[in-house]
């Protein structure tokens, strides 16, 4: 799958999974931090995103702390998915 297409897909999935009311895929910039100031996600969201990676891309991350290194922004997530997906 092309990177750009994957980025779009990932944004749509994140919005749906985390129930981000009022957010459209075009509102999420590729390098916008997911946590803290950027998209404003929190610790429960980081766990939910790990589940998203598992269910949609077959990627298992067992430690949420390790997960935070991957879940920086769309770019890092897509990069990780491309390298590790099993689905």
């Amino acid at each position: 799958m092309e990177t750009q297409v994957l980025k779009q897909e990932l944004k749509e999935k994140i919005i749906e999974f985390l129930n981000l009311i009022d957010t459209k895929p075009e509102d999420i910039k590729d390098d916008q931090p997911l946590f803290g100031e950027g998209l404003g996600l929190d610790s429960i969201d980081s766990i939910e995103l790990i589940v998203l990676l598992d269910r949609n891309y077959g990627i298992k991350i067992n430690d949420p702390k390790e997960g935070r290194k991957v879940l920086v922004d769309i770019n890092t997530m897509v990069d990780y998915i491309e390298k590790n997906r099993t689905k």
Partner: protein
Amino acid sequence: MAKVYVTGMGIITALGDTLELNRDGLMQGKCAIGKLDSFPSKYAETLLFGEIKHSNAQLKKMLNVNVKGVSRTSLLALHAFNQAIQDAGISEKELSNSDTSLVIANTVGGMCLTDELYQDANQHNSGSEYIASYDCGSVGVFLQDRFKIRGIVNTINTACSSSANAIMYGARLIKKGYAKRVIVGGTDSLAKFTINGFNSLHILSPGLCAPFDKDRSGLNLGEGAAFLVLEGEDSIVDQKIIAEVKGYANANDAYHPSTLSENGDGPFLAMQQALKQAGLTPGDIDFINTHGTGTENNDEVEGRAMIRLFNKVPAFTSTKSNIGHTLGASGAIEAVYCILNLLHQEIYPSLNFKESITDTRLIPEQSYSKTVINNVMSNSFGFGGNCSSVILSKV
């Protein structure tokens, strides 16, 4: 205001079915946390739990329960309730008098019946025998009906601080004249629901929990029940007085649904206000039964809050290292353990501790000892920032 006394107790945990067995286990530093024996879960082999080694069928037989629709949560409650009223010598007549109240706590209710609940929630044809037994209120309703309790009956769910709040509510009912005697307690059974819930938050320990240890990595779930009979000073005729409910308080951390704030305002305020309510100073507390779940968040924050409040943090342990975290039952079970401390003037060892948390450097008691204990504090801090502290005193 008149004092509130404990005149009877009952308990069932992974350490045993009686007060004696529980005390023996605590004295010996026994760890009753291990693999699940008879619980059908994916995690039976991989995680460790404080399971009570009686099946539901066995419990029903032991307790002479022949009606349908009684959940494990209710069965454990019945066991501890029976013991408590027997210990206090309460007659059937007194039980069903309108001046006897029941205040119970639990978080699981009938949700331990995962498969039945799934069926009943999702299909429209006919219900299982448990159809009216899923909510938290079902346990209190079961006991009220079985014993014909006519006074105020209440169920409280504030997550892990539930039964500490039940003790508080019961004591206050007596002080305000709503009841002469109140049977207070808590119960929770292991459930796929809670196992998977806590697992989804990544706070279950892969091994044995290690409260206040630097390398702690989560909690072990347990199950159990405990009840205490509370009676007001004015009602004491010839009942044996076991301990006094000296003080209590409930405060909220107001920070996050499932994590305590860094400063631990909730825990701090609960402890501080319990002391004030008891008319005691921090220096009067001889021992603390901590909430001490073994999670990264709780133990660090609880430690910090203790340091904030106490010039010198008293001796403390976590009995969750013996039996796991019994959720809605923990406040009541730990209150019973505190009363054992008071009755026998002894401290039981906290288990699985190797090195203290860097920031707080607190060390729990790790060996059994005989010591003077006049006032014990028992802390319970739950999801939703619900923090409660109960102080029990020697009589």
